[in-house]
């Protein structure tokens, strides 16, 4: 069996003259929690809608593991669960009835499965209530329940914590981790919240203005720099001294640190220079760039280009 749960090749979507997604190639492996990251309007939702057949791609390919014909594409897609934006249900019907109706459209989903997914998302006790009385968080959990109905191999969640209160966010993230560990699901999660991606995902794809800027592990993204932090007794003196030194890029990071972007050789020279000028060096350590900083670095570079 292939290790790939989902792959796109040069996926493109144009709405009139506006390019929403531009030659996007991503690969989601089995067992991943893949974070699809980008600012609002970057093309995340359009991409996910294309994956689910809601939006027709202008060009490019979408590949699920087993798929040689359009019939097989439909069959493969039937093993994909999804929430796109806010989950919507028939308000007057109970949560259980809503799931039963959606189950009947999913093909081969039993009534027992409806009860199972209600149990997974912890909604079984309130399953008889009409959806119109549900809180936002409960709707979101019901959304995840409907996505789980076809016993999917891949689950696509579009900004699943959007609009939730802190408790709801915590519960949803816990549920997503559980889906991966307990039910061995592959999760494709779109978000514009960096903390969410940082906490949940083992792989990240960053999209900006429809283009993929980065794909890989979040650690690789943040560790791929020569940033170091320096704590000294005389911050202003050290900054002045190092600013004049060739090959070093220095910035002041808050009240107590300097940040130096330098390779190992230049870093040793900087240390010698500080000590040689009577400045006490208390700490000199790699400064890991936060995902937010890495994200801003990538997107601003893209804008400059």
């Amino acid at each position, binding site marked *: 069996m292939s290790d790939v749960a989902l792959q796109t090749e040069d996926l493109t979507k144009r*709405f009139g003259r506006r390019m929403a997604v531009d030659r996007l190639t991503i690969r989601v492996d089995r067992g991943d929690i893949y974070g699809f990251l980008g600012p609002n309007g970057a093309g995340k939702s*359009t991409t996910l*809608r294309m994956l*689910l*057949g*809601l*939006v*027709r791609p202008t060009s490019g390919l979408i590949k699920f593991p087993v798929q040689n014909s359009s019939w097989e594409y*439909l*069959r493969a*897609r*039937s093993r994909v669960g*999804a929430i*796109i*934006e*806010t*989950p*919507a*249900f*028939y*308000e*007057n*019907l109970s949560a259980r009835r809503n799931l039963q*109706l*959606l189950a*009947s*459209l*999913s*093909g081969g989903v039993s009534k027992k499965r409806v009860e199972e997914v209600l149990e997974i998302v912890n909604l079984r006790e309130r399953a008889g209530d009409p959806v119109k009385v549900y809180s936002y968080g409960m709707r979101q959990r019901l959304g995840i329940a*409907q996505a789980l109905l076809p016993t999917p191999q891949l689950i696509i969640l579009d900004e699943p914590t959007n609009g939730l209160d802190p408790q709801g966010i915590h519960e949803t993230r816990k549920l997503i981790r559980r889906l991966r560990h307990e039910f061995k699901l592959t999760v494709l999660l779109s978000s514009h919240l960096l903390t969410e991606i940082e906490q949940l995902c083992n792989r990240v794809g960053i999209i900006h203005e429809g283009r993929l800027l980065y794909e890989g592990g979040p650690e690789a993204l943040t560790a791929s720099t020569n940033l170091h932090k320096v704590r000294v007794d005389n911050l202003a003196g050290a900054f002045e001294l190092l600013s004049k030194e060739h090959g070093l890029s220095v910035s002041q990071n808050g009240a107590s640190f300097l940040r130096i972007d330098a390779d190992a050789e230049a870093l040793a020279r900087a240390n010698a220079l500080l000590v040689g000028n009577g400045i006490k060096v208390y700490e000199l350590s790699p400064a890991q760039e936060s995902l937010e900083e890495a994200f801003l670095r990538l997107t601003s570079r893209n804008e400059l280009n």
Partner: protein
Amino acid sequence: MLTLLKLELEKLFRARSFYLSFLVLIAFVALMLWGFYTYAARKTGGEAVEQFKYTYESKQYFNGLTFALYSLLFSFTLLLPIFVSMSAGSQIAGEARGGTLRMICTRPISRASLVLSKFLVTALHAALLLSFFIGLNLIVGLIFVGWGNLELYPGPLNLVDAPGKIMRDDALMRFGYSVLSGTWALLVIAALALLCSVVFDSPAQAIVMTIAAYLTLYIVGRVEFFEHLRPYFFTTDMDFWRDVFKPEIPWRNLWHYACTCGAYTTGLLLATVVIFERKDIVT
């Protein structure tokens, strides 16, 4: 397809608007009954105008069947097309507005079968409305006006050119035929509304556009200036359903216009499927 149909039926029977449409029809029948009594009383009191000159000479004219016929013909001009437009116009656009369309369309079902199941449910709704309305009119007519033969005169109904008569049992049969012919004619409106429902994302817009198109053609088709355009309007072809109330049913003519309406319905449905298959669901 069968699953989708069951789902659509459940939604139809659970919708408040479904029952509301029947209540409005009951109110309309009550209004017609009041109007029938008061108008007849006034006109037979010596104020008969030229166009009613035959009508009030016949003591047999006013009976339950006449009442049902008047009520049906008047309601068919506007009331029933509005209900059918509302039912069909909200099918896709309503789901798109509510967000449930994307929930359904992410399931492994074909969009064509979704359109078809929604059309069939709308057709059932139209048939139920018409059957209920005709049945109610006949019952109310029997109880409050009494039955006799259906006498037809040239006049406001614009049904016959010369006086004629349909015997009571035959007339009842004709009302039965009119359920079929009327529903068939209303399907053109249903298909048009469904097309608008796919094109527009707002159900209100879809409904208004359908009613506007229907009324514009209906009114323009009755203005003398546009007489030469009349044969090209679908509203003219839709009028075939009334032929079942002529003393001698012009079967050949009826089948011809029934087929024309069927062609309109099929064409509009095909256009709906093609547009919906290509539509990006971004709501």
